[in-house]
């Protein structure tokens, strides 16, 4: 902290549990749970520092324009304003940032490329003063035509969203307004098509979903006496932020000290930077702590969204119901800046077949540059859009063949040993048919539950709910099934490591382990799992979870369903190394007292060193007396390799994750309103380290998938590329009355490559939830419904 005290609301050390139990496989409770429910948890927006200023960002009011001039004179004159900064005030030659491609300006230079792009920043002694001063900045724009879809992006006279691209994708894309293109070719689609007795084609549209995390972007930058800065921030990956922030500030990375603050959800929306650099710039400029908190309106402009997509699919099948071939083209709209688009393209392509056996495929996946809002990471990451389309195809094809929709899927389901279209074998359990069997076997919710309470209709059980639109009139039940496949961890050759520092010592007469990682706890329950792993490996009751910061090595991103696998794996690995050292000390101190020290397989359990037969050799307190053991080590999962740019072949993914859903809906077919009654899920999790958290993740992912099925969509005006509904008034997310019963059936089939055999779980349920709901609505209405979300006008012919 370089002489300054930590601000209020900074996370402090959390000591977990006092029982000797609480290892992996138990549903230990999360330390933040009660605090969050009772409103006492300190989020990053709650931080406060003496003398702090408030930062405000001025954003573009148009989507695509040249900046003719920026006049900050009036803003600077405003009493209470300490600084106004534009592009010209950036301190170094590094003026852009980006996850993979550094194409995003810290502040706009010469041009804005999307509605809401940051143009100038202000620091003032009151948030209202900062806001008013920002409003006084005069920006003159000369508007340019907007690029909003594939046709306008690749038109012969299309304006290039980014001139002079020199990133590593420019060499293989067919047009500079295409960020990345990934084909996957395997087998021979043309001859396989000849074997098909039935062919179905479909054109699908997937709307732009927002992560809608409840804690808006916020953080506090505190200038330090050594010329550096301490940044308290809600993010998904501290070290990725750090790599992008430090060069813009002109500081070495060790002078930008970052500490994770209370994160109110992420879902991919915090992978990219938001206000981090802006707060640091203002803090360094003014010499004062600067806090920035977005409001909800700004949050809609302040982070990337899920890629909207157009997907064209062709599938064939034989009379017997065997899939013959698949051909598809997936067009993702990446918006104005690259963000995670290249990786999303790779995911969409490599998972485009779904969890099915298909030997002859021809896949093309691209992401556009456009003037729409930038899109990047969101739970499911490219696999969500594909699953929506291929699952609709499976239903259509099953109907053509004349088979039961679930049986058709089971007949074609992949299993362990299946070769993916990338040539990668699926080398751990892939219980796709079994998951489908399980959701189908679950008891159906009773019919007409709205009549269960008595003679009058309980409208809460009906579409429209308390809005009292039907008492049963026009209501038709529908049932739909879907299953999906998601990769776990970062793919395509990425060095996806995590670091864990584990310390073991005696504190207050008790052995205590401290786990220190830079893992962002965004609500997934990672800190709970780390404590469980430490208890299991080190046999201690007391585990202290150190606040996540950049004083320890990178833990990678809290995304891609990877943290329990990778940072959990790192914690396990460091614990094992600590255990070896503890045992060495034990041998040194006590080895002569018992022959087992030299021969037996020794464990740490219940605060003691024991043999695998359970004989106690020493108390850990005695072993660790006067000693402290500490290990900081990086840990890696097995390596992956990039997909070939022409054929898409390559061992691209670490692990696959599978979930299946059965949706039961009641549709008011006259008003087009939908009530999802139940979303049953079966998922293979390898090993449930914390079963309660596993259920929570599955229910949360399922609900987020429901949202994009029936209500969630950022609506962008196709003429102006401006966002039309940046608020929770008009961007709707499910309430508890929209959230159905979610019975969950958890399978635990170990993946031998993974720590404890576990499988990343956070994303898979988001994939199949959406197409299952869509299938159920189709089942109720008989409509084709090739877009999501479905709105009442689509169900009533009044679009």
């Amino acid at each position, binding site marked *: 902290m370089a002489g300054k005290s930590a601000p209020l609301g900074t996370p402090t050390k959390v000591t977990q549990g006092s029982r000797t139990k609480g290892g992996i496989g138990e549903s230990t409770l999360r330390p933040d749970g009660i605090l969050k429910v009772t409103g006492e948890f300190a989020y990053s927006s709650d931080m406060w520092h003496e003398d702090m200023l408030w930062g405000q960002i001025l954003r573009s009011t148009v989507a695509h324009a040249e900046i003719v001039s920026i006049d900050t004179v009036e803003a600077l004159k405003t009493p209470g304003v300490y600084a106004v900064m534009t592009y010209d005030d950036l301190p170094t030659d590094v003026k852009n940032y980006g996850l993979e491609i550094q194409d995003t300006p810290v502040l706009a230079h010469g041009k804005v490329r999307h509605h809401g792009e940051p143009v100038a920043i202000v620091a003032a002694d009151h948030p209202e003063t900062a*806001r008013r001063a920002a409003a006084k900045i005069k920006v003159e724009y000369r508007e340019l035509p907007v690029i909003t879809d594939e046709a306008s992006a690749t038109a012969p006279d299309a304006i290039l969203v980014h001139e002079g691209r020199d990133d590593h994708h420019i060499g293989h894309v067919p047009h500079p307004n295409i960020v990345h293109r990934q084909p996957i070719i395997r087998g021979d689609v043309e001859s396989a098509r000849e074997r098909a007795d039935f062919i179905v084609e479909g054109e699908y549209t997937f709307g732009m979903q927002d992560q809608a995390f409840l804690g808006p972007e916020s953080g506090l930058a505190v200038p330090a006496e050594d010329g550096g800065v301490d940044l308290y921030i809600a993010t998904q990956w501290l070290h990725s932020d750090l790599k992008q922030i430090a060069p813009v500030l002109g500081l070495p990375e060790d002078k930008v000290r970052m500490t994770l603050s209370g994160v109110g959800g992420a879902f991919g929306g915090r992978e990219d930077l938001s206000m981090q650099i802006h707060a640091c710039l203002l803090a360094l400029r003014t010499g004062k702590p600067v806090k920035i908190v977005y*409001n909800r*309106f700004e949050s809609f402009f302040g982070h990337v969204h899920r890629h909207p997509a157009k997907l064209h699919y062709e599938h064939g099948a034989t009379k017997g119901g065997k899939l013959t071939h698949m051909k598809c083209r997936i067009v993702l709209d990446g918006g104005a800046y690259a963000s995670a688009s290249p990786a999303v393209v790779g995911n969409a392509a490599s998972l485009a077949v779904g969890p099915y056996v298909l030997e002859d495929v021809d896949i093309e996946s691209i992401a556009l540059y456009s003037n729409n809002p930038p899109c990047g990471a969101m739970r499911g990451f490219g696999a969500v859009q594909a699953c929506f389309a291929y699952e609709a195809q499976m239903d259509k094809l099953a109907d053509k063949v004349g088979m039961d929709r679930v049986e058709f899927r089971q007949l074609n389901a992949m299993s362990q040993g299946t070769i993916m279209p990338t040539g990668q074998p699926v080398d751990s359990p892939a219980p796709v048919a079994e998951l489908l069997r399980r959701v189908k076997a679950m008891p159906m919710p009773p019919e007409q539950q709205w009549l269960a*309470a*008595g*003679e*009058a*209709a*309980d*409208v*809460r059980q009906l*579409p*429209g*709910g*308390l*809005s*009292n*639109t*039907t*008492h049963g*009139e*026009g209501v038709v039940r529908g049932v739909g099934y879907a299953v999906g496949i998601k990769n776990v961890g970062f793919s395509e050759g990425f060095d996806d490591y995590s670091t864990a520092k584990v310390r073991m010592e005696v504190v207050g007469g008790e052995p205590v382990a401290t786990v220190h990682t830079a893992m962002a706890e965004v609500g997934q329950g990672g800190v709970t799992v780390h404590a469980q792993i430490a208890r299991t490996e080190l046999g201690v009751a007391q585990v202290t979870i150190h606040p996540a910061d950049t004083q320890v090595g990178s833990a990678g991103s809290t995304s891609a369903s990877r943290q329990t696998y990778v940072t959990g794996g790192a914690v396990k690995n460091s614990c094992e190394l600590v255990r070896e050292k503890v045992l060495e000390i034990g041998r040194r101190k006590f080895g002569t007292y018992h022959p087992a020290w030299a021969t037996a397989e020794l464990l740490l359990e219940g605060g003691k060193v024991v043999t695998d037969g359970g004989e106690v050799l020493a108390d850990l307190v005695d072993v660790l007396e006067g000693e402290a053991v500490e290990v900081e080590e990086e840990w890696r999962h097995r390596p992956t390799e990039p997909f070939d740019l022409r054929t898409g072949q390559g061992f691209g993914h670490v692990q696959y994750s599978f979930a299946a859903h059965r949706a039961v809906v009641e549709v008011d077919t*006259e*008003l*087009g*309103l939908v*009530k999802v009654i139940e979303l049953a899920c079966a998922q293979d999790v390898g090993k449930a380290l914390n079963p309660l958290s596993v259920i929570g993740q599955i229910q949360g992912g399922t609900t987020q998938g429901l949202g994009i099925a*029936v*209500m969630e969509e950022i*609506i962008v005006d196709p003429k102006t590329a401006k966002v*039309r*509904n940046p*608020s929770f*008034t*008009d961007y*709707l997310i*499910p*309430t*508890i*009355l*929209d959230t159905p019963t979610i019975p969950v059936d958890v399978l635990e089939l170990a993946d031998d490559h993974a720590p404890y055999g576990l499988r990343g779980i956070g994303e898979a349920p988001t994939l199949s939830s959406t197409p299952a709901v869509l299938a159920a609505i189709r089942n109720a209405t008989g409509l084709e419904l090739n877009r999501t979300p479905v*709105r*009442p*006008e689509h169900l*009533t012919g*009044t*679009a």
Partner: protein
Amino acid sequence: MDFLRPASWEEALAAKAEHPTAVPIAGGTDVMVEINFDHRRPEYLLDLNRIGELGEWEVGEESVRLGASVPYTAIMEQLRGELPGLALASHTVASPQIRNRGGVGGNLGTASPAGDAHPALLAAGAEVEAQSVRGTRLIPIDEFYTGVKRNALAPDELIRAVHIKKADGPQQYSKVGTRNAMVIAVCAFGLALHPSSRTVRTGIGSAAPTPVRAKAAEEFLNAALEEGGFWDNGRIITPSVAKQFAELCSAACNPIDDVRGTASYRRHAVGIMARRTLTWTWESYRGTAARTEGVA
């Protein structure tokens, strides 16, 4: 922004006379959203929360005098018998927290076409008690809404209460939103049967620049019910009558396309709601339905 806090109604009227641009605030469920979103920055806020009588109501012979700040929760829980349509409408307002704060006075003051109370007030029949230092007047609800977010209040007037006719027959209210709770109306419909005058009244929300009645539909239905002797013989309403009533209600709409829904959908949905609410109220009037309000 100045924050005016009158201790009495008289002080409030004086403050409003002195500062006609002052925006009255009671529950704050609408005004504060506008301020937080920076959609408006009034020069003065006129806080009415110290005036206890605004949260009270009186049940009279003919009507209920409902204080402007009576929260929706109280209407739902305590005035369901007298004001069934408004009670149903109140239940569709936002969330329990908002219903504990918000009241009909705010809905009328904002006069948004999407305000949930309006169709119920139009269907029941109501008068707005507007007051200023100059005096009191009762504005018939049919004349109250003058444009998008505009009403008949003079700049120095405040809404003290609403006089709503007590129900003399079944009333219903339906609202379409794209979520099953906490949603702004895509469109809404209120219907009240008035057996004592042998008339029906309607109210349509969010499907025209202002809340409106479907007068042609009412006239058609009044005539059809009279002609067929329905009020006396209690027969089931003929499907063709219900259908035409629904069509005329759709025709009374003058909606727009926006992010919440298409104009075409709004017309369609108002027709469906008109037909359904007519069935529910009429079945209730005939006494065949055990309870047709729906329960929650």
